[in-house]
């Protein structure tokens, strides 16, 4: 998918001026509330019109003020998954799902209803009224409805924001499996860095109605480490090995991690803030923390008044942060050896 937008839109005091070209299959649009993300979505879908500019999608002009082109929403084939599902309350789940499918030209119908029902596990919901669905079920139906309209681009506008944490990660699994199965390129709009990192391979950072830059989610996370209150969030994909009294031992690459907040599920993803990692130049004698990892410094990067330290550990990577003075004192540089200490209670389970 290749998208190019050069638009200007004024809404009261707010002025959106976006000028970018991007390509890819899973693109994030990241920014704080009120930065212009949703305006961008509505311009792209044709739900509102810019004052001037052009919008091109895969070589087709969707909007051009100079050429007086403005394709109506139903001809753009740009689907939206809204934050609040927006299911039609007067229709059953099945009728909601088929709403877009029935209006899609037969030559564009490449997604099969039954396959979709299977991927999103909707069989049991089909005959229900949409008012008797839970939040997570509603969002799954909304996703299914948008996919069945066979769009060439799917806009997911904060689709997880209305859900609680545990549901969020369930829905992410569905979003990922659906996008892998049906190969519909998407823009994932969110103010959550974690969501953007889990869902996308490239990010447009939006701030104050402007596109502040295009980067990988990893670059964005590192850039924001210094100013973020939670630092850089490491996402650790682990496998349960054994239980140890009140703790759980997980395999992470070649390393074993001791975690307090584990459970009996065989696989899990844990968050670990870069601020919860303490670095030692030499092996510390006796420590209360349960995890002492011998690491190699792979790289260092500045972020605000902090220095990010990328550590290699048992074939995996970890990002820790230290203040500039500490980095100088410890003489942290690439290829040096270092010890990372992490308390078992510092790991937070995702989902």
């Amino acid at each position, binding site marked *: 998918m290749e998208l190019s937008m050069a638009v200007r839109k004024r809404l009261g005091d707010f002025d959106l001026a976006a000028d970018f070209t991007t390509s890819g299959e899973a693109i994030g649009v990241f920014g704080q509330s009120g930065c212009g993300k949703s305006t961008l979505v509505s311009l792209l879908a044709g739900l509102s019109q810019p004052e001037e500019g052009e919008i091109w999608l895969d070589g087709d002009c969707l909007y051009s003020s100079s050429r007086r082109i403005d394709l*109506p929403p*139903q001809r753009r*084939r740009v689907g939206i998954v809204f934050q*609040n599902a*927006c299911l*039609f309350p007067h229709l059953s789940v099945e009728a909601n799902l088929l709403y*877009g499918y029935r*209006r899609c030209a037969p030559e564009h119908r490449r997604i099969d209803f039954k396959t979709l029902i299977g991927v999103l596990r909707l069989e049991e919901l089909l005959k229900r009224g949409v008012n008797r669905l839970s939040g997570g079920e509603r969002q799954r139906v909304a996703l299914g409805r*948008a996919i069945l*309209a066979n769009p060439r681009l799917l806009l997911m506008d904060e689709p997880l924001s209305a859900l609680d944490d545990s549901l969020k990660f369930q829905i992410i699994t569905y979003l990922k499996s659906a996008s892998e199965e049906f190969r519909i390129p998407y823009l994932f709009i969110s103010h959550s860095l974690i969501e953007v990192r889990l869902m996308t391979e490239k990010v447009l950072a939006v701030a104050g109605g402007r596109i502040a830059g295009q980067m990988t989610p990893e670059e964005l996370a590192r850039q924001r480490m210094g100013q973020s209150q939670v630092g850089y969030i490491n996402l650790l994909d682990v496998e349960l090995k054994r239980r140890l009294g009140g703790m759980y031992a997980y395999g992470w690459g070649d390393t074993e991690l001791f975690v307090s907040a584990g459970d009996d599920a065989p696989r899990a993803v844990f968050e670990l803030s870069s601020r919860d990692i303490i670095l030692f130049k030499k092996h510390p004698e006796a420590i209360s923390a349960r995890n002492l990892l011998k690491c190699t410094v792979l790289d260092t990067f500045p972020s605000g008044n902090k220095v990010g330290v990328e550590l290699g550990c048992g074939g995996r990577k970890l990002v820790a942060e230290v203040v500039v003075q500490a980095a100088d004192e410890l003489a942290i540089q690439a290829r040096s050896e270092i010890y990372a200490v992490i308390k078992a209670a510092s790991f937070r389970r995702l989902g």
Partner: protein
Amino acid sequence: MLSLTPADFDAIALSIKVAAVATALSLPLGFLYAYVLTYLNFRGKVVLEVLVNLPLTLPPVVIGYLLLISLGKNGFLAPLCDLLGLNLIFTWKAAVLASAVVGFPLLVRSIRIGMEGIDRQLIQASRTLGARSIDTLFTVILPLSVHGILAGSSLMLARSLGEFGATIIIAGNIPGVTQTIPLAIYEYASSPGSERAALALCLVAVALSVLVLFCHEALGSRLSRRD
């Protein structure tokens, strides 16, 4: 003992007929009018707003008189009536017109309140799912306005059953032809010794109004249960 004469039964039947026809004819127009006021933005919209609410504030007699002079022989609507082969004045159709004009603002207001309660994102969702605006109108806006349409129709029906001022001017008070319940009561009330007959018709009017309101409540709660 209160009893009804054959002429009273004629008046009751005519009242019901006039109110039902006026409401049925106004419904599609009222729906479109409410749609235009709710969803479209254009210059001069305020004129349409004032125009639709005017019958609410004008005395019905004024409306009746204005209709009479516009539909009369030299009125500006006379050529249109001639073209359509319609002879309205002093027929039951004139009573329908009077009821339609007087009840229209109530209908439009109720439908509009219903439409304004529809989440705009539902409309946007339907557009991005491939629906043209007319498709969205019939598959999303219309079904979600049902409560408003029902409320508006009941109000208009009840208002039409009681329409007097405009009707007596434009349709006259001809027993068996244009005499509806309120006109019959007026006639009884102005002739001595007919108090009981007037009272009987008053009770019928009350019963009809209560029936309309009951039906409205019953249908409304059925729709709510379905939701």
